[in-house]
């Protein structure tokens, strides 16, 4: 029994954080919003970091890592509100293809030449797919209509929900950081607004929500990696906890920013909108809550002193 994440896994995520914060800052979001909203140069950078091949088995030219590693990195993608479809292609589609023995495209995906847009019936759309465009509130999200061939495989849903949850945690963390920074520089009544307890307590509550969403996320990723029977319950749990943290963080961050936060000029809105988008994606809040209900109150999941990690 060991609930800690191994230091080398954290180091990799740390390296990705440094890389992403250097190449995908807020100015990139604004540039992408003004023009074509994908950038081949940024994609190439992700490829060179090895991220497109993170979950591709080594004999297909990838790094062969696990879902916990991918979740750690998806969280970093959330922190910068990454626009490129890395998570859906490399962290959702790839493990699904591998699980289904469909290995023909894996080498090309790892090498960055091919992107896969996973389509699941529970989503009403495909992100970064081909077809008639749908308009998302998130200006950097490219949605198209759902094809008739969309899957209803529960594993694909779990993978999508897990990676959405991971990004939501990162988004929530980034919004909290922005709110804290702003609270230090904005002065009213002769002092930084962050000195007021009403503001402090709001952000402290976001810190609490995140502190107790993160371990749920890691536990869900590990459960899916280990393919334990209840993995999908834990993914639902992670999705709900991350969604709640992201909504709370967004609402608190905008409040702390005041009217400034209500403008398109302040970057915060990119994170908020991505958060709303991912909160409903890969199974709505209600869907995942119902799933938890059925398992816990419905009694299909064992609960008792020895079942903390069941």
């Amino acid at each position, binding site marked *: *029994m*060991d*609930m*800690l*994440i*191994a230091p080398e896994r954290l180091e990799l995520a740390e390296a990705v954080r440094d890389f992403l914060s250097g190449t995908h800052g807020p100015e990139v979001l604004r540039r992408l919003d003004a023009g074509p909203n994908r950038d081949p140069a940024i994609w190439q950078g992700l490829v060179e970091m090895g991220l497109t091949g993170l979950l591709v088995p080594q004999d297909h030219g990838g790094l062969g890592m696990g879902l*916990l590693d991918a979740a750690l990195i998806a969280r970093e993608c959330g922190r910068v509100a990454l626009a490129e479809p890395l998570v859906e292609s490399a962290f959702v589609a790839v493990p699904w293809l591998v699980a289904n023995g469909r290995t023909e495209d894996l080498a090309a995906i790892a090498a960055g030449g091919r992107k896969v847009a996973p389509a699941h019936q529970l989503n009403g759309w495909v992100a970064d797919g081909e077809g008639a465009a749908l308009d998302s509130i998130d200006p950097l999200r490219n949605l198209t209509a759902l094809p008739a061939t969309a899957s209803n495989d529960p594993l694909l849903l779990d993978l999508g929900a897990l990676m959405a949850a991971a990004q939501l945690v990162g988004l929530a963390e980034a919004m*909290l950081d922005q709110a*804290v920074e702003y*609270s*230090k520089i904005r002065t009213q009544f002769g*002092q*930084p607004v*962050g*000195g*007021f*307890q009403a*503001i*402090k*307590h709001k*952000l*402290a*509550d976001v*810190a*609490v929500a995140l*502190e*107790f*969403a993160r*371990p*749920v996320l*890691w*536990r869900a990723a*590990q*459960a899916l990696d*280990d393919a334990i029977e209840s993995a999908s319950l834990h993914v639902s*749990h992670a999705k*709900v*906890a991350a969604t709640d943290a992201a909504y709370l963080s967004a609402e608190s961050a905008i409040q702390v920013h005041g009217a400034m936060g209500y403008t398109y000029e302040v970057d915060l809105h990119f994170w908020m909108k991505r958060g709303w988008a991912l909160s409903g994606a890969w199974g709505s809040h209600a869907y995942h*809550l119902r799933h*938890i*209900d059925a398992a*816990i*109150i419905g009694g299909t999941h064992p*609960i*008792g*002193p*020895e079942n*903390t*990690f069941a």
Partner: protein
Amino acid sequence: MQLAYTPQQQAFRAEVRTWLAGHVPADPLLTLECEEGYHQHVAWERQLASGNWGMVTWPEAYGGRGLDLIEWLIFEEEYWGAGAPLRVNQNGIFLLGPTIMEYGTPEQKERFLTPMAAGEKIWAQAWSEPGAGSDMAAIKTTAFRDGDHYVINGQKTWSSRASFADWGFGLFRTEEGSQRHKGLSFILFDLDTPGVTRRPIRQLHGHPGFAELFFDDVRVPVENRLAGEGEGWKVAMATAGFERGLMLRSPGRFQATARRLIELFRQHEREASPSAREAVARAWMDTQAYAYNTYAVAAKIMAGGSIGAEASLNKIFWSELDRAMHRTAMHLLGAAAELRQFADGRMNDWLEGYMFSLSGPIYAGSNEIQRNITAERLLDMPRVGAG
């Protein structure tokens, strides 16, 4: 990350379960907030200690089992899962004990730890004073040196279990004219020392759960001071960290409450509201999240790390979770919620639990104070004025 228990851990769980099954009282004890219930709980502590289960992480030399924190978490899951009583001994074993291990002299360890683990001496905390609640550095009670004794004068209040307990520990001003955090010392005292008067205070539920303590020229030997004279604040902060952090609030207790709540929901499913269903599912989610977090923190401590201001996040989370679960139960019970005893004779322990849960966000440093700590020390937000 390795989320399966080792065979050794599973065997330990089985051993704990067997022992508890043979020893946990069949009928629930009276509340430890009344005199008779207090003595029942003390008897239970002694029984636990007879099997060396008083504090499993303590060294065997002091009556423990020298186990690690993961084994302690397993013990706690089983303990609460078996419906075993609240720990009347908690101030000693969870708060003062670890503080003595860190700051005590060999003689103090020898003198205090074994009787503590054995349940022979029950401890009360004496920090708060009428004018010093959240602002603990405002304490006024003095302990001035007279040869090899301190002479204590003043008043403490809201001291849990002090109505019946044997010993107390707390902060006293040992330097004449000192202000705030300076000039304070951490002193242990026998509650039966001449000059100590206890006045029990009735709590919300009507029981004399805590007491005011009046000190009138109370003489306490200097060797009862923990750490150096004037170093009391530092030591007290260590104790407060234990209180907010891991020890006192093991996840097993909240997980057991969540399971009872799920059971209660099933009994009331027909008249329950859809939002109650969600609240019940959330009880499971949040207690699980709390458990995962605690297991991770335990692993971090075992790997040589420590917890600092994160203990404040913990305190806010468990106390508000506990209140929310009990509030949900009150709603599920509907009209029956007001009964102290149900028609079938069972105690309404949800009501007792709800009243008790209301104190969680107040004691161990109120949640407003914890949010201040979180904002200033973890988020690095500006400190302004006294806030």
